[in-house]
């Protein structure tokens, strides 16, 4: 084996070239991480909106709450299910909600976004324990007061406490701001379900949510609802329901991200190749010397491959480090699955770091292999003759 310090010293010796190559690979890894962190961030934000043990019911084939319709009779039948958990007062942990979209203007750009208005009951908050009011209060006059999710209040016009929003032919005053531990609910407006039904003239609900008394009964409850001809409804774990809403967006970003990473990656591979070919050419005599000292072709090949991998790995580390700072960037965009605005952060995960390192090493292998082969195939005599 040729000592690894030989490769590393060479990288250090050719400072500028090494730096430029490392930066190139770093940039590519950064882009790669960014696209994966974006989809991961959205998925985590949405999934966090669901709580363990909660079940969501929407109309069959409706895909999302906005399109779902559940009539009062259907809601009543399900609310009486014995499998639903009870609270301390013996009341079922069950809520029927209305879910509509309204258009609001963003503070920063003035662009419009579709915002969820959720009509809720007094069980809606206990069912979602991560939600708590951090500023102001709960509504007292259900007919004209609303509370607003924190990230919505930060981004949209007229969402501060005391301000008014007009929808359903009346003005609503914001009386409270709620926090939902960064989940998708933070991008919603909440009001009383009866009042929402009145204001939007919707004599129906959009979704039902309840807590299972015993999670193992889920399949039985699902079968019970889906077999009942009066209930043409779809039953899902709340977490699965939210996970599904990020699919369309994630697929799109995933495809674009991979396409970008590959095209950026090709550029970086070419850059690495240039560097490694130059390293081989500059060290023709050294290679001859190493061979003359008794190192085998395979040793030379491995040594140059190692050098390429160290370069690409350094790039990978820089790229990941840069991407790490993206965690502080907040993105607000329309989630195509729900057609509504949602705010989320770029979110890194161990899986993304691992994938990024593999991607970086792959670029090193692709960029380093041909130059390493050239180095290993040099003839000793000829290499000494080189000028």
């Amino acid at each position, binding site marked *: 084996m040729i000592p690894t310090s030989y490769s590393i010293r060479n990288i250090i010796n050719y400072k*500028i*070239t090494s730096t*430029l*190559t490392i*930066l*190139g690979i770093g*940039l*590519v890894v*950064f*882009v790669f991480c*960014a696209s994966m962190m*974006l989809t991961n961030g959205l998925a985590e934000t949405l999934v966090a909106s669901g709580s363990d043990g909660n079940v969501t019911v929407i*109309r*069959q*084939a*409706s*895909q999302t709450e*906005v*399109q779902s*319709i559940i009539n009062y009779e259907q809601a009543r039948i399900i609310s009486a299910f014995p499998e639903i958990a009870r609270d301390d007062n013996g009341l079922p942990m069950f809520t029927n909600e209305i879910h*509509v*979209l*309204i*258009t609001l203007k963003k503070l920063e*750009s003035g*662009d*419009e976004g*579709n915002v969820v208005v959720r009509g809720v009951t007094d069980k809606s908050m206990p069912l979602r324990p991560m939600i708590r009011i951090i500023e102001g209060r709960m509504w007292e006059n259900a007919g004209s007061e609303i509370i607003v999710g924190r990230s919505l209040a930060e981004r949209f016009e007229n969402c501060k406490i005391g301000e008014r929003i007009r*929808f*359903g*032919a009346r003005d609503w005053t914001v009386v409270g701001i709620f926090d939902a531990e960064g989940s998708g609910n933070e991008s919603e407006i909440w009001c009383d379900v009866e009042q929402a039904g009145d204001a*939007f*003239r919707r*004599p129906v609900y959009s979704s039902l949510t309840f807590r299972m008394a015993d999670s193992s009964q889920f399949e039985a409850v699902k079968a019970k609802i889906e077999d009942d001809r009066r209930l*043409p409804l779809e039953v899902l774990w709340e977490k699965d329901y939210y996970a599904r809403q990020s699919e*369309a967006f994630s697929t799109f*970003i995933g495809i*674009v991200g991979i396409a*970008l990473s590959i*095209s*950026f990656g*090709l*550029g*970086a591979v*070419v*850059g690495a*190749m*240039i*560097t490694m*070919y*130059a390293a081989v*050419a*500059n060290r023709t005599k050294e290679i001859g010397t190493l061979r003359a000292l008794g190192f085998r072709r395979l040793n030379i090949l491995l040594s140059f491959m190692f050098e390429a991998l160290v370069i690409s790995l350094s790039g990978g580390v820089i790229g990941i480090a840069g991407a790490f700072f993206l965690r502080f960037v907040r*993105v*607000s*965009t*329309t989630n*195509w699955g729900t*057609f509504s*605005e949602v705010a989320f952060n770029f979110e890194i995960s161990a899986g993304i770091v691992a994938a990024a390192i593999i991607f970086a090493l792959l670029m090193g292998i692709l960029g380093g292999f041909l130059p390493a082969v050239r180095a290993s195939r040099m003839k000793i005599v000829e290499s000494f003759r080189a000028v």
Partner: protein
Amino acid sequence: MKVLKLVTRNAFRRKLRTFLTILGLALAVMAFGLIRTFINAWYAGARAAAPDRLITRHAVSIIFELPLAYREQLLKIDGVEDVTHASWFGGYYVDPKNFFANFAMDHANWFDIYPEFIVPPDQLEDFNKERNAAIIGQGLADRFGWKLGDKIPLIGTIYPGDWDFVVRGIYTGRDESTDETLFLFRFDYLDERMKVESPDRAGQTGWYALKISDPNRSAQISRAVDSRFDNSWAETRTETEKEFQMSFIQMSSAIILGLRIMSYLIIGVILLVLANTMAMTARERVSENAFMRTLGFEGYHLTGLILGESLFIAFLGGLVGIGLLTLVAGVASEALSQFFPGFQPDRMTYLYSFGAAVIVGVLAAVFPVSRALRIKIVDGLRVVD
């Protein structure tokens, strides 16, 4: 002339390296162009918008519907020539992943107000005769292999149930930017069924399209429409078709911004590749440059030589890159036309892509030039590689 020869000779002194550099540049220039083309395609709907059409929708949000009775009142407003309407249906074919736009429209005059959708007259006649008839875009027909007379079942998301349609027409776009991926069917088919299944949802439509007599008066007519319905339960919001389209595009403005940032980052990748090559060249030619200066060549000669070489390589990379762009965009536009229209690089995209390469050519020369100028002749001659 001699200088030019020296520049090209220098550039090809290390053939493999120069070849790789050009390849790297070309790939990145192509990627830059593709990202820009992709962003432009996103705006295709807004580009296709006609100036003489206004869209009236519910003021609260697009998910709320307007009464059908508004049509008569809209027609009375000064400057409105004709009114048609449509409802987003949001159905899917077999699997929700098979997304395409499908909506119910007023078959009586939809195609008069949207003349960019070209339907053969006999097909239009068939369409008008049958209640569950549909007219689909050529791109959509290609995507699923649908032909005239095919029965297409859609599963309703907003309007529950299974809905069966028969393809009675296939339209083509008049313009490059016309969307050929739509699935259009008759509004009366939707409304009649709603009357039976959920009467409170009947008699409502998603949005109105207004043909106006004078595009210059669009703002004034919009205001007239909206004030007509002020303080009614369903207040309206009227805007030009372009603004209407833009409001959908802006919903994804964060994604578009992200793509734009990517397109600048890829210029960074090109810069790094070329700068690397030029830095290597500078390193190898230290003594040679010193030697030239002893012969009496001045700093500006060296600057010209190095900058010339950098620009020459960038130029070739840019040329190959936009060649690749044309090639790839051609293939992609063919493949993507079934999903979205307008994936075609425009003149500005070519210009920017090539311009990016040239700028990179200048920037990459900065370091080698400064190094060549700074080094003392004596030191330069002393360097042993």
